[in-house]
């Protein structure tokens, strides 16, 4: 019995190492868990007063990567990393959803009753056609966007998209307007 308990502990430890690698700080994981809540609390105030939050983080026992209590600069940088990570995960999820949608749309049996599932009670799929994902949605599998809809710059072409999106914002155009014109060379060499 005690052997099983030890194994369970080890399993739990391994799970912890995989889910939360030690190269991230306790503050990072706390911000990941509370990301949505913090965004809601921030509301329309775009600037977060990290100096005021740091004593609260310290009271929770949260530290930066060096084990020290967070300071305003390290807290702000950690928050930016969390936002980037969240955006990356969401982009990956969106790409996976788009891929599933493509597969579903290309399934020749998609409109057959056997595909509807036991709980399906709506009209047949033939009446509600699922449009294939747009080129932009597929393309998201290579790049991701932050919470404001701006591309995360990882290479030269994405810097071009970023510059284009900045111009869109200044020109009151939709943030993703025409971005396929910037990276089409990469997609269609």
């Amino acid at each position, binding site marked *: 019995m005690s052997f099983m308990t030890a194994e369970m502990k080890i399993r739990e430890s391994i799970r912890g190492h995989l889910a939360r690698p030690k190269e991230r700080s306790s503050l990072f994981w706390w911000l990941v868990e509370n990301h949505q809540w913090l965004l809601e609390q921030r509301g329309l105030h775009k600037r977060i007063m990290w100096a005021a939050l740091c004593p609260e983080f310290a009271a929770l026992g949260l530290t930066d990567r060096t084990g020290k209590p967070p300071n305003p600069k390290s807290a702000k940088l950690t928050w930016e990393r969390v936002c980037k990570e969240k955006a990356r995960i969401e982009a990956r999820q969106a790409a996976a959803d788009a891929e599933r949608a493509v597969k579903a749309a290309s399934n020749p049996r998609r409109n057959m009753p056997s595909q509807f599932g036991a709980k399906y009670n709506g009209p047949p799929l033939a009446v509600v056609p699922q449009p294939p994902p747009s080129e932009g949605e597929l393309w998201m599998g290579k790049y991701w966007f932050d919470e404001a809809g701006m591309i995360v*710059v990882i290479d030269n072409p994405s*810097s*071009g998209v970023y510059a284009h999106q900045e*111009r869109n914002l200044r020109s*009151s155009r939709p943030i993703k307007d025409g971005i396929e014109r910037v990276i089409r060379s*990469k997609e269609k060499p």
Partner: protein
Amino acid sequence: MNIHSFEEATEPAAARTSVLAVRHGRGRTGGSTFLDLLIQRARRAGRSVIIGDGDRGNATLANLYPPGDKFGAVQPRSDDIADVSDWITSLSGEMVESGGSLVLDLGGGDRVLSEHSRAMALPDFCEAFGWQPLAIYMIGPDAEDFEHVFKIFKAGYFKTERAILIMNEALVRAGKNASGAFDQILDHPGYPEMIESVRQMSMPRLECMSVLRASGLSFFDAIENKHGVDGKRLNLGQQFQVRTWINQMEKKFVTLGIEEWLP
């Protein structure tokens, strides 16, 4: 994020590799303004920068940093290609001895680079001495601006891994928006090729640039409320514009991953 929180987060690295930054582009595309910012922020952080202004037809850097002053710009003897080529070689040597960076404004000097590369390939020179070459291509929204830098890019006289294509929004004509103005560049047949090899950046318009230049103040002197050559300071609104512009540029440097590329 408030743009003014960015300056606080941007601290200069204590030490970095010396940089040979060469600006390409037609005249009056804002290259000197961009180089001026690079020079000021580097010197402010205690990093040494030699200024070479080879654009004698429009010697903005030499006007801002008068030749002969301790940290003034250095100009070639004449516009003659041989003189300019000798001048580049000489400045490169100075850069080696000083251990600092070198900012080279060649204006439309593609012929100069062509001539100079026969005697000495600057990227190879940098590699030999452990410096990082940085190509800066400045353009406005005119197709000719892009064609000019694309020609230099294709010729490969200064082909570097680190290269920035800067689209200067200050050159967008009244009545056009920034996005529409640069659309024709995206449609240029050379753009797909260039985008793979250069980091792109938009340089926003600084509304009070002409006032700032007339005052003779540097960007940072202006926001520190110093007096200009006419004894006047920029008003608080203009100071705010300059601060905003600097912080926007700093944010871009970090976001685009090029902060460490700069002198």
